[in-house]
C-alpha cells in the first residue's frame, strides 16, 4: 500500500507538473514548448491511468480501516476487482503502444540546446512562473520554442 501511495503521487506529479502544462502550452503556437502531437504522444493516456490507480489506492486504504472487511473485503477481493471487474488496468496497454516513439521524442527534445523543453524538464521552472513567462512571450510575440 505504501508503494501504491507513492506511485499515485508520482503519477500526479507527472500529470499536473508536466503533462498538463506542456499540453496546455502546446495548444497555442506562441507558447508551445513542444508540439501538441509530441506532447500527446509523450504523455499518452496518463489522464486515464491516474484514476485507475487512485481508485485502487482508495480501496486499499478502505481495506485496512476497521470497516474494510465489510465494505471492500480483503486483498484478493480488492486486487481482483480492480484487475478483472473494473478493467481499469487495460488502460496500461494503451500507454505502452507509443512508448518507443515517446522515448525518441523525449531524447530529441532534451538534446536540442535551444529547446525550452530541456529547461522545463531540468530546471523545473515552477509552473506558475512558466505560465507567466509564456503569456508574456505570447503578448510580445516571442516564441518560447525556437526552431
Amino acid at each position: 500500500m505504501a508503494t501504491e501511495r507513492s506511485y499515485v503521487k508520482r503519477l500526479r506529479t507527472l500529470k499536473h507538473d508536466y503533462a498538463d502544462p506542456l499540453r496546455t502550452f502546446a495548444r497555442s503556437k506562441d507558447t508551445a514548448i513542444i508540439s501538441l502531437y509530441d506532447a500527446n504522444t509523450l504523455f499518452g493516456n496518463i489522464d486515464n491511468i491516474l484514476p485507475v490507480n487512485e481508485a485502487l489506492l482508495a480501496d486499499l486504504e478502505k481495506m485496512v480501516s476497521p470497516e474494510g472487511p465489510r465494505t471492500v473485503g480483503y486483498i484478493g477481493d480488492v486486487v481482483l476487482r480492480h484487475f478483472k471487474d473494473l478493467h481499469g488496468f487495460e488502460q496500461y496497454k494503451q500507454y505502452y503502444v507509443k512508448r518507443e516513439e515517446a522515448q525518441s521524442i523525449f531524447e530529441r527534445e532534451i538534446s536540442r540546446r535551444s529547446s525550452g523543453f530541456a529547461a522545463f524538464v531540468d530546471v523545473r521552472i515552477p509552473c506558475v512562473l512558466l505560465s507567466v513567462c509564456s503569456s508574456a512571450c505570447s503578448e510580445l510575440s516571442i516564441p518560447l520554442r525556437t526552431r
Partner: protein
Amino acid sequence: MNRIGLRELLMDPVQRIPRYTLMINTMIKRMSPGDPQRGKLVEAVEIASKIAQAEVDEETRRASVMFCLRTTIDGFPPGLISHSRRLVDYIDLEDTFIEGLPSAPSGTGSSTLEPLHCTLFLFDDKLMVVKRPGNGEKSGQVLAGLDQLEKIAKGSGVPSGLKKSGMSCKGVVDLTDVVATDVGGAGMSSLHRETLLSDVRKIFTSISRNPHRTRLIDGLGAHSDLCLWCFLLTRPISTHNKQRSTKRVSWRTSGFLRQTSVRGRVNR
C-alpha cells in the same frame, strides 16, 4: 520542490504492471493454500501478466502489419516501412463521381466513370490509396491478410502463406497535403456539416504528426477534391486494436482517388 526527473516518471507506468505481478506472486507464496483470498490473487496475477505482455506484442504487431501490406500490395513503397509509422485505420471505399463537382472529368468516355474499388490505409503521417482487384468483392482487410493478423496476434506473429493479392498501390499522400473538404450533398443541414468538419479537425490534430500544417477547408470551395471526412468521421480512431467489426462500409469519394494518380501528388 519535487525533483523527480520526467524520464523516470514516464517510465513508471511501464514498470508498474510487472511490479504488481511480482508483489502479488510474493503474497501468493506466503499464503496458506487454503486461504480463500489466494485463488483471487492467482486470477488477478494472470490478468496482470497478460497486460504486461501487451508491451511486447505491440511492436511485433506493428511490424507484422507492415509485412502484410508489403507482401500483398503491388508497388508498395519500401520507404513506407518505418519503426515509428503506425497504421491507424483502413477502410474500403468506392470512388464514384458526383455530378456537378469540379473534380468530375468532363467529356471522358463512360468507361472511366465506372466506380473504382479502393482501400485507404491511414498511417499516422501518410494516407495510402490502394486499388482492389475485380469488382471489389474482397475487402482490403482480407486481401492484406490483416484479418488473420488479428486472430493470431498473440503468438507467432506474421501470417504465413501471404502472396500478392491483386491490390496495387495507387499512391501515398502526406497527411499534411490532405484537404478535407465538405463537398455538400443533399439533405445535410448546415449545423450537421459544421459538426462534421470540426470533428475532422479534432481527428487530424490527434493523429497527424504535424497538425498545424493540415489544411481543412470548409464549405464548397475550389478545393473540393477529397471527401475524406466521410471516411474519417465514421471511424473511431483507436490507438490499438479493438475488436474490429468485420463488416466494412463503403463510401463514395467523388473521383478524388482517381485524380490523385494523375495529379502527381503521389509517390513522392
